[in-house]
């Protein structure tokens, strides 16, 4: 315990932090935390009963936070209180914050549209804001304590959201499973982090990076790398920690599943990218040599093995699903596999940067296509009371706009041109091929072909399967629903054909600001 305080003092001196932190850099997390309190207070004042106020309040606040991030200037460089720099609100964290906030906004919208009585409404919004704040901090955390706190904030709020409908048996089961797995994995990760701390004597990623670079390969660090990865894998729903995912996504309300599948996954990848590449102020240290151990091949091996297992498991397990919500859960596992595959080649060289940009780009696309698909699930559960794929039968004829929009999302998830999913996949596979990992790329590509089989199932129900008399689809989308699905589908085609250059540039600008 003794070296902790002197080291802290050393680092404080070294990084020459100003005594007063620049509070503007703490946005939008501050606003999100404030909202937690505001909603609680409003709830106290108002008393019980459902209210249309909360969704409006939430969407308004998230929109404001979104605009603040979008138009705020990026000031890279770690900041923190008391000379303990813990956050780096750089361009990379900025783009991920936009992803979280957009997903949060859409989640509230979906909850509103699901017309599902959640009960204890105010609390739902409180938890959501807690989750968003945690994600925003996680995306910019630069030292272990802040990182771990943010990580756990995201986890706990996730548990609560997943089990929110405690009166629903499956919801309760989902929440419980999530907590069990979460507790184990976070213990494992904490142990890994403690090994790293014990080895380097520092909490700062930047300092750890330098120390590890000097340390060379050590068995203890291999262990640490595996344990830390375990924690990440849990949140990313990657092999071998993916078991909770299908049950939780299926048991949760559809909007919550959407939130977990997109925002939660983006948060853990944001943190992962930083851990893998945060080279401190100098930025001179090579990538993949930092928190997880000097010998980058260890980290790489872990990532590649997990990527292959994750995508294969996700895709093949998805083949047998008949519930759309569960199928999307497996599909999101498979997508985590593709992302991990590309994560194995990130670095500070040009190709490594492109790989990072590919991951960021993919999240921007994934946000649109996956949320859109989950909206269809929301509609199914609202109108038909089931997420079974057969509930879509005959949609092509009865609700062609909805059916075609959903088809575009499915094509995009498969990665077929001319949708954005294709260019996304292209940017995930390109660095892997360019790095010379042909076998890995081949496994990924074949997986992409397999995925078509289950993505085509809803297509078949919507367009091909004959309707049974008296069993017409019970989905009854109104104008707003159609506007929402169209708003998700149209950008996928436009981005797939014309806009992807600009979005890629955006992603590249974002990763370029990682020191």
């Amino acid at each position, binding site marked *: 315990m003794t070296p902790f305080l002197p080291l802290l003092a050393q680092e404080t001196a070294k990084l020459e932090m100003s005594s007063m932190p620049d509070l503007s850099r703490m946005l939008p997390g501050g606003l999100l935390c404030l909202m937690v309190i505001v909603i609680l207070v409003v709830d106290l004042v108002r008393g019980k009963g459902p209210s249309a106020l909360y969704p409006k309040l939430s969407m308004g606040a998230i929109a404001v936070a979104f605009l603040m991030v979008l138009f705020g200037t990026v000031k890279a460089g770690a900041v923190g209180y008391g000379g303990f720099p813990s956050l780096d609100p750089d361009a990379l964290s900025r783009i991920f914050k936009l992803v979280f906030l957009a997903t949060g906004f859409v989640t509230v919208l979906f909850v509103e549209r699901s017309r599902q009585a959640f009960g204890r409404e105010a609390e739902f919004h409180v938890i959501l804001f807690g989750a968003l704040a945690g994600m925003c901090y996680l995306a910019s955390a630069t030292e272990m304590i802040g990182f771990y706190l943010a990580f756990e904030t995201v986890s706990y709020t996730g548990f609560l959201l997943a089990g929110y409908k405690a009166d629903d048996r499956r919801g309760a089961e989902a929440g419980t499973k999530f907590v069990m797995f979460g507790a184990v994995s976070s213990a494992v990760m904490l142990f890994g982090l403690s090994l790293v701390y014990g080895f380097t004597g520092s909490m700062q990623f930047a300092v750890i990076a330098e120390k590890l670079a000097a340390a060379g390969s050590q068995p203890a660090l291999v262990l640490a790398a595996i344990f830390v990865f375990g924690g990440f894998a849990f949140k990313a729903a990657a092999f071998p920690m993916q078991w909770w995912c299908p049950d939780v996504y299926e048991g949760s309300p559809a909007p919550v599943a959407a939130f977990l599948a997109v925002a939660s996954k983006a948060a853990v990848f944001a943190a992962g990218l930083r851990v893998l590449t945060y080279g401190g102020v100098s930025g001179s240290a090579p990538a993949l040599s930092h928190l997880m151990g000097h010998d980058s091949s260890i980290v790489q091996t872990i990532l590649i093995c997990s990527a292959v297992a994750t995508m294969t498991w996700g895709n093949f397990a998805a083949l047998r699903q008949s519930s759309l919500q569960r199928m999307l859960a497996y599909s999101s596992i498979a997508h985590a596999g593709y992302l991990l595959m590309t994560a194995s080649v990130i670095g500070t060289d040009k190709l490594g940067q492109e790989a990072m940009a590919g991951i960021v780009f993919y999240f921007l696309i994934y946000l649109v296509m996956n949320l859109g698909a989950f909206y269809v699930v929301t509609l199914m559960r609202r109108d038909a009371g089931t997420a079974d794929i057969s509930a879509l039968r005959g949609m092509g004829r009865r609700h062609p706009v909805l059916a075609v929009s959903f088809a575009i999302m499915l094509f995009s998830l498969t990665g077929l041109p001319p949708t954005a999913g294709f260019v996304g996949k292209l940017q995930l*596979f390109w660095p892997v*091929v*360019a790095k010379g990992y042909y076998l890995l790329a081949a496994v990924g*590509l074949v997986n992409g*072909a397999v995925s*078509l089989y289950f993505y085509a199932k809803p297509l078949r129900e919507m367009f*091909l399967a004959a309707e049974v008399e008296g069993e017409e689809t019970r989905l009854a989308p109104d104008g707003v629903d159609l506007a929402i699905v169209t708003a998700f589908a149209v950008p996928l085609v436009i981005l797939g054909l014309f806009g*992807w250059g600009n979005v890629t540039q955006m992603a590249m600008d974002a990763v370029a600001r990682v020191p």
Partner: protein
Amino acid sequence: MDWTLTLMTFVPLAGIPLLWASNEAKVQRWIATIVSAVAMVLSFVVWSRFQAAGVGTALGSSPLKVDLPWISVGSFNVRYTMDVDAISVFMVVLTGILGFIASLSGWGVQKNPRGFFAMYLLLLTGMFGTFVAADLFLFYVFWEVMLLPMYFLIGLWGGPKREFAAIKFFIYTLVGSVLMLGAFLAVYFQLGTFSISEIIRRHAEIFPGAENENLRMVLFGALFCGFAIKVPVFPFHTWLPLAHVEAPTPISVILAGVLLKMGGYGMMRMAFPWFPDEVVRAWPVLATLAVVSIIYGAFVAMAQTDWKKLVAYSSVSHMGYVLLGLATLTPEGVNGAVLQMFSHGLLAGMMFLLVGVMYDQAHHREMARFGGLATTLPKYTFIAMVGFFGSLGLPGLSGFVSEMMVFFGAFKSALPDAKLFTIIGTLGVVMGAVYILIMIQKIFLGTAKEAHAHPLHEPSAREWIMLTPLAVLSLFLGIYPRIALDMIDPAIQSWTKEFTPHIAAHAEKGK
């Protein structure tokens, strides 16, 4: 900058909204047919303009070329490049003709004709685009764009097992395309360009050196498998009989007439010229697959009782000739292969139409239940004989010329055991005669086996308009193949020349 190719490609796409101009099925049919006719005329314009520029014009230098920046970011430099050489022009003309004829055949579609024609026109755009794209990214986009309408055309308007046929077709083709995409990315990584003509020119830079020998072979294998699924070559053919049989007649025509040709086209354009040395090394495998396709396809065709299935398996056999011809790497063989692609497009399209004409009347395709059509329907029998004898390889029709050229080329080829493969391959001709003659005997000769609810009648005027041009073209090419050969030969001469040093080097090593 010349917009003819762009116009031709996107005219069908632009025609789709027009289908909503009227709720009358009749008007929609006319709209689709007129749009297809315009596209066909434009394909002739492309042909004549290319002729005027000189038939030897290589890809990347024709006056029809369009080359615009599309997306340029990071490592990606995607261009909107369209261009043609003699081989693509040949395929474009085939697409134009069959596209028009199949649109006429689509008049028979009763269920939701608007949806059918919308999908059909989208398919047409995809096909034209695939043949004129000169940028890999663009090529891949068009290649995949064909998949979606095809899935729905088979799955919605097909026969009883349409759903399974559609998904099987979709998955097989997608596996092929991802293999292709992997190889494209690897090549792009080496050369930094998506331009097809530039890659052909700089093919020696693709993973050079002896240490990369295996890698090159894997990449060639991936490309070859990607295209072989489309051709289809044994053992990748299992999607074909199902898809052909379940698809509605116009789509069978397009599938057999145009889509199968994309496999051969892709091999000529990408797999072979990018990896010339690997082609020579893989020759025994390629020739074996080709010969097995020829013989196996013929045997299976012989065993069919369903008329359409017989025609479908005959395609497997006939496309085997294309692969054999290409793999010989001799000008005769490759000329024969390209001519066979065109000829098979005409004849297979025609055979599917002929089956379709009878199926529409009899509502079944069991050969054993027909009989004696020669006496009851003499006119239909006459035109059918042109199609079926053409497919059998009767001298005077296009199939004969192309098959003979393939065998000449194969026999002449300097590659090891070429003569052995040729001799085995020629057995396919005999077996082709067997299954066609058995079929003719069952359906056209003898006496009628059963009375049909409605007496069978001769083809309608619309059906004559579909069948006659194909018969005339086949006859014309059979008698005067020079008109086609003069056009494609210069391109093929320079194409095969690239392989000569590799063949020589390989022979040297063998000694």
